[in-house]
């Protein structure tokens, strides 16, 4: 997600590498490059100035100038300063000691409020809470309908009042409904509004007063440019939000907002939205994000994902089978599904140190649809075929292709690749194949 910034910084630092001691001119050149890459990452200009001044002050100090590896020292300093700017550690969502906890969602039009209301509700439900979503966007056509559909998808109830025109009333009714039905978290979705639209900002203040939220969350689009700061400050002045969700961080948005939200508003980023699916929401970790920006990978997040999604016993069983070269197509399908549960494969690769930056890897488009087809092909096989692929003859191949909506060629390809993989594993079995999931 921060590829471009990472590339630029690495370009700067590889220029510093192997030069021995740094001169002040070297540092200046590096600072100019850092300034430029931060601006291109949509980091707010005043914040860029502040950051480069802080980095330069430390970089021209003894710890760098007298170092034998000054480039690494500069990376370390930039890493620390980025982390500090983002607020150091992760902040979690506050829960009210006396339920229901009320969360008010606010933001500009199109920032992703409705989608992220549902994502957050799904996350809370998965943690064992009983959320209720309240549809207070009475402006945008079909916005209430959208929340209702999302509620059905994630199996979370939605309070809506068709034809309503007063969001304050809907919000109040929603909270009353939550108390009545024993829901312990209420998420109030609101209409998108411009920060300069006084009337709409007043409405938001009125909703805030009516529902007395435990937290107000501002949803900020990661693709926003220099105006994001003004928007955040305006919302801060009007409704005093408590935290931010940074949405749409799964594209190539440089996500400069990740760097300044805390510094400018004093409020933390709580979560980041990383995809279109309702489960694409992650806690925000400043230190890990800084590592990611600098191309140092994000192994911690990867391990966490694995722990959440992979069954340890299963992993061990499969590892043993792999070592013995006895992996069946069924096991293969299992493993494929486990890995996919962790998220899009391209995204996982970005978390592995070194992989995200290798330009070769970056150009490899992981086509999820091809993996879908592999799943479909194996699912169309009988159990005995999966256990003993050798029995799959021509007529079986035609049946499998037809059943999975693929072609015989694709079935052939998969079987050939699987055979090769089995051979490879047999050969490596004694040598100790590093298991991906056993880690």
């Amino acid at each position, binding site marked *: 997600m921060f590829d471009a910034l990472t590339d630029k910084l690495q370009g700067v630092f590889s220029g510093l590498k192997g030069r021995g001691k740094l001169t002040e001119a070297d540092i200046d050149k590096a600072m100019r490059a850092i300034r*430029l890459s931060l601006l291109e990452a949509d980091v707010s200009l005043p914040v860029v100035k502040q950051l480069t001044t802080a980095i330069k002050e430390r970089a021209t100090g003894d710890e760098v100038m007298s170092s034998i590896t000054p480039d690494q020292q500069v990376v370390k300093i930039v890493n620390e300063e980025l982390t500090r700017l983002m607020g150091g550690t992760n902040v979690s969502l506050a829960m009210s000691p006396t339920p229901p906890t009320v969360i008010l969602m606010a933001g500009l039009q*199109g920032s*992703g409020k409705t989608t992220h209301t549902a994502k957050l509700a799904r996350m809370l439900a998965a943690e064992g809470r009983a959320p209720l979503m309240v549809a207070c966007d009475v402006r945008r056509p*079909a916005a209430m309908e959208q929340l209702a559909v999302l509620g059905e998808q994630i199996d979370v109830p939605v309070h809506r009042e068709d034809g309503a025109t007063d969001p304050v009333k809907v919000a109040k009714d929603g909270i009353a409904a939550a108390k009545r039905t024993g829901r312990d978290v209420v998420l109030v979705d609101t209409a998108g509004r411009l920060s300069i639209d006084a009337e709409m900002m007043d409405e938001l203040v009125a909703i805030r007063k009516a529902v007395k939220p435990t937290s107000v969350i501002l949803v900020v689009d990661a*693709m926003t440019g220099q*105006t994001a700061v003004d928007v955040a400050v305006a919302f801060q002045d009007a409704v005093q939000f408590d935290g931010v969700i940074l949405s749409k961080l799964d594209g190539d948005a440089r996500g400069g907002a990740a760097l300044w939200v805390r510094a400018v508003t004093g409020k933390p980023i709580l979560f980041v939205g990383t995809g279109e699916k309702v489960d694409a929401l992650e806690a925000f970790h400043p230190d890990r994000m800084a590592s990611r920006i600098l191309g140092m990978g994000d192994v911690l997040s990867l391990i966490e994902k694995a722990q959440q999604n992979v069954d340890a016993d299963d992993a061990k069983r499969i590892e043993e089978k792999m070592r013995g070269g006895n992996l069946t197509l069924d096991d293969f399908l299992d493993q494929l599904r486990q890995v996919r549960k962790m998220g899009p494969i391209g995204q996982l690769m970005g978390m592995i140190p070194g992989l995200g930056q290798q330009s070769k890897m970056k150009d490899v488009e992981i086509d*999820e649809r091809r993996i879908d087809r592999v799943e479909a092909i194996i699912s169309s096989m009988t159990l005995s075929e999966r256990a003993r692929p050798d029995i799959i003859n021509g007529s079986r191949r035609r049946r499998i292709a037809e059943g999975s909506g693929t072609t015989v060629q694709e079935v052939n390809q998969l079987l050939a690749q699987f055979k090769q993989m089995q051979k490879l594993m047999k050969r490596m079995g004694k040598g100790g194949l590093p298991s991906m999931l056993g880690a």
Partner: protein
Amino acid sequence: MTDGSAEGALGAFAELFGLAAPEPEEDRPEPSRRGLFRRLRESIASSQSQAISPQLAGIYQSKMVTDELWDDLEEALIMADCGMAATTDIVDALREQAAEGRITSGESLGNALTAEITRRLAPESPRIALGDGPTVILVVGVNGSGKTTTIGKLANRLTELGQKVVIGAGDTFRAAAVEQLSVWADRAGVDIVKQGQGADPGAVAFDAVAAGQARGADVVIIDTAGRLQTQHNLMEELRKVHGVTGKAMDGAPHHVLLVIDSTTGQNGLSQAQLFSEAVPVSGLVLTKFDGVARGGIVLAIERELGIPVTLMGVGEGIDDLQPFDAQAFAEAIFSPASGGNA
């Protein structure tokens, strides 16, 4: 807003589509461009945000052209999201004029700046030419950029100009997107071709074009699901929708409009690049241009890709979508009145 400027706006739309101008009203106070411009200025003046103000105020008040002034200019352009490359280009061009003695004060620098931006953005007036038989317009963009709202307003304007419009509800992914577009279609009083959520967007596009032909429509506007430009599979899907549209009717779609949110930063360039690789983007629609957002990203896109801005949206009202006017745009962002003297 007054009735007068709304009429003027319709005239501007007639020009955009190359249609006959609507019957002139007796006391139309001013042409639309001025109306929109005035509203933008009011909106910016009332804006609490004064991010660019210190730099701009400094520029216009300066009696002499100093080094500091050039720094201020550079910062003002960066704060407007023009991007480093376009900023450097513009500053260099103005420095050249200063070296030739054509810029001697802060005020003349400010005027030269708006002239330079106007020149870059508007070699000619925006056009969405309508041909014989239905003209097909495909509308694309990232999530939340304002595609559906833009289509609703565009359909409304075309109807006012006496055109028969059919809308294709091609966003079959987002929950309730079809319902949202249906509401707009009702308001504009136009036909909508739709299928359920999860339907094949290519099939919807094909049906919409076919329906447009069968019903003798003048314009068919096809909505698409929002997608981030880096989502390879979804961009492939968009390519297919485009291809299917061509199968339904030779030469369709005749226009592909990319909708970009004015608050977008440097990511907007990547949006324009990657969407253009998938489908032939013929024009930009700059939405939510409200006074806080400066929309300078269109300068970066113009510089790299040469895609013109055709429409600009300033708010949620049905009258808030207008044909793009480069001069109004440049003056709205960079004229002294927006520079914080208000």
